């Protein structure tokens, strides 16, 4: 009896293993909001005689965590979209295989955070900035600095995201840390405490904040943490006049935080060479020029041409804030805990 039982299990395992091995497929692990035109993917498939599968996990955090748990036996071959706030966690856990793409020559040096070891390659970047409802503010009456947000004029007006569960939320917290610092008379926690007194609302994620609470989408808060390019997306999707966008982005110095996203070859992939080709492809103008109107971030390749909407109407920050990614990893938990205790309890 026992023998039959064991035999059956072994047999089943064998069948399942065989069934999972089919033709060559390159699997890209990414987050839920990843989008690129089908034609672009088709081109890569045709050139390399391969099937590309896009595996969308809930968000960048889930993507990194799951990959750490399965390091060496990855769910896919390439990870797309790990950003500078998660980078250090990913690198420390040896998620990636090094690869230096020749196309990096066209990528500005300040975006190449891992330029000694090339474990990850920058692929796109964007800026997290405050957005305002243009029916309630003009560029002049909107807050001009982070400190302005604690002014009673902006009481009960701002909605932010939980930095523990949302990447723009974390970027905004990092911006406040970069501006106010952790020590001195007025630290980032003093700022957040004032912000809480001034009626800031914190919700779980970007879509809850933007589509649930922002006045432009029917909510009650005319200021929201979003992206510098969000006003362009509003115009584009609602087919509005780009001269009169319904929202505006505040891009003054010391208000926006830069997010750089990376692509990397997952340690343990059987398709390393193909994955390298994909990275080259992701840096090529074909792919890079498809990014702005689909994911609303900017291409890293300086030879890629921006769409007209961006060239004519984008207001982008000139000096976005950044923090060292190793510092972010070192202190993230401490900051998040302190934030939660200041704002939520």
């Amino acid at each position, binding site marked *: *009896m026992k023998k039959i*039982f064991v035999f059956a299990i072994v047999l089943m*395992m064998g069948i*399942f*293993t065989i069934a*999972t091995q089919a033709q060559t497929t390159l699997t890209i692990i990414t987050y*839920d*909001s*990843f*989008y690129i035109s089908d034609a672009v993917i088709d081109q890569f498939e045709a050139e390399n005689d391969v099937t590309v599968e*896009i*595996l*969308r996990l*809930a*968000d960048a*955090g*889930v993507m*990194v*965590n*799951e990959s*750490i*748990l*399965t390091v*060496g*036996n990855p*769910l896919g071959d390439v990870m797309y979209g790990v950003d500078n706030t998660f980078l250090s*966690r990913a690198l420390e856990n040896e998620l990636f295989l090094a690869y230096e793409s020749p196309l990096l020559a066209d990528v500005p040096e300040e975006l190449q955070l891992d330029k000694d070891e090339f474990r990850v390659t920058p692929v796109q970047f964007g800026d997290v900035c405050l957005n305002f409802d243009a029916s309630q503010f003009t560029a002049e009456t909107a807050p001009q600095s982070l400190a302005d947000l604690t002014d009673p004029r902006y009481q009960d007006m701002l909605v932010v995201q*939980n930095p*523990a*569960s949302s990447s723009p939320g974390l970027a905004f917290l990092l911006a406040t840390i970069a501006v106010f610092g952790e020590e001195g008379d007025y630290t980032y926690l003093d700022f957040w405490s004032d912000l809480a007194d001034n009626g800031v609302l*914190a*919700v*779980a*994620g*970007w*879509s809850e904040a*933007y*589509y*649930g609470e922002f006045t432009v989408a*029917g*909510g*009650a808060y005319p200021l929201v943490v979003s992206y510098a390019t969000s006003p362009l997306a509003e115009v584009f999707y609602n087919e509005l006049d780009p001269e009169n966008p319904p929202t505006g982005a505040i891009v003054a110095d010391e208000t926006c935080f830069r997010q750089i996203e990376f692509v990397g070859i997952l340690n343990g992939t059987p398709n390393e060479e193909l994955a390298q080709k994909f990275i080259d492809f992701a840096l090529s103008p074909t792919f890079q020029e498809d990014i702005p109107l*689909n994911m609303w971030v900017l291409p890293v390749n300086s030879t890629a041409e921006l769409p007209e909407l961006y060239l004519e109407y984008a207001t982008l920050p000139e000096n976005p804030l950044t923090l060292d990614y190793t510092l972010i990893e070192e202190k*993230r*938990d401490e900051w*998040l*805990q302190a934030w*939660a*205790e200041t704002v*939520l*309890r």
Partner: protein
Amino acid sequence: MNHRLGGIFPPRLIYIIPIAFLTLFFVYPLVAIFDRSLRPDGILQLGGFITLITNAYYRDTLWFTFWQAVISTGLTMILAVPSAFVFTRYQFPFKSTLLALATLPFVLPTVVVATAFRALIDDNGLLNTLAMTLFALDRAPIQLERTLTLIFIAHVFYNYPLVLRMVYGYWANQSGRIEEASRLLGANSWRLWTEIRLPLLRPILGASALLVFIFTFTSFGVILILGGLRYATLEVEIYNQAMNLFNLPMAAVLSLMQMVIILIGLNLYTRLQRSITSVNLQGSVARAPHTIAERLAIIGTVGLMAILLFMPLFALVIQSLTDKNEFTLRFFADLATIGRGSSFNVPPLEAVKNSVIFGGITTTFALILGLMIASLLNSHKKNRLLGWLDALVMLPLATSAVTLGFGFIIGFSSPPLVWRTEWWLIPISHTLVALPFVVRSILPALRAIPKPIHEAGMMLGVGRWGRWYRLELPLISKGILVGAIFAFTVSLGEFGASLFLVRNDMPTISIVIFRFLGRAGTYGQALAMSVILLIVSAIAFLILERLRARGVGEF
């Protein structure tokens, strides 16, 4: 002589199969994740337990989890027990339909319940829109979003049907003769309540309250979606620690803490359940109402159910058909196509098929395993192994979904067990969650079978199969059907563990809803998908309810 019921299965397999199943798919992943979390470098690190006690943040979380569960339980009992009395005592139109429909909320996944409440009380929700139009207000009058009140309302919504069913089911089967006798002996209604009714009901009241406590203690979706960020139960904090902070040691400590507390609760529950006397059909004690007070009690009960249970569901349906105050079928139509940049490689409607298939498989697995385990637990040979098995079967109820999910990731990603992306792992994970319900539904029915029936069967020379099929099965069929309802609906609604297992080409309904809620601009589609889940649950439920005829289920 083998008196053991469940004789259909060869005696050895009945041990091997359930234990092998639970070991491979529950114990192994759980050990894998706890090992990884608490022994990251091969050295056991238990500092997290000290943090748990010394850090005010975790103490507060634990305290909040506890008292919100106590209040939720109290509120549920206060509302549901009088309703159960009305259901027991009086006959009124549409009573059984109402009871069947009232069970619907309990089987809905938390995501949908939370979504339904948001659709009802949001600034743009049904109640506020209605009030603003009626009274020409320019600000929404009802401001319950992200309040504790809303959490309590949702918990009552969820658990009221459970208590109503359990208490009504028990009460209706109590003999009316004791009451008649005491009335004849001159007991007034106060003494009738305090000396007759409540003492008789004590075990069922205790059992149902404990169950509500357990469910609200581990509340996740309701707190996460309705409570905003201010409130966190242990379960929410485990999720936060594991998913957001990736603090696995702390998540493991909290997870173990929750398991211990819930196991204590489950143990008490099992004891109470044993003291509940078995089904005792005496015919209905219900009669038509005579006085105005009695009529008012019925109207009050039906009114309460309409407001509490059906309004949110109604709001959900209305909101799914409305876009910017105009009627639309757009959200439903969208479900048939693969949206731009969709999370899935198939149209969302495919999820209905997947969910029904997974539900079917889960039900089959859970019933087979549940029958085996129930008959093991019912066997008269009391040994230590069975005690452990009893606890093991209940354990999935106490295990946080994210812990189990991470366990699956670690356990089934490296050779030779590379099952992580296998579709069948989904119904298997659902089976784990459904199993405690199934076992608890079948066990009381098995216990109620009088032993002489078997002896008679054996004396008449009926074989093992025949005894099972002709004697045992008819007697426990009600329990099996109740178990089947639970298994199917648990599978439909499960989204915690599924989140880690579902593949882009085989989404389930709950996962589709969850993803829609998390994405930009797909709230309407989330509502539409919720309505579909509601319909699928209702259909499954009504079919099984038909089969069940009039019976009494526990749990």
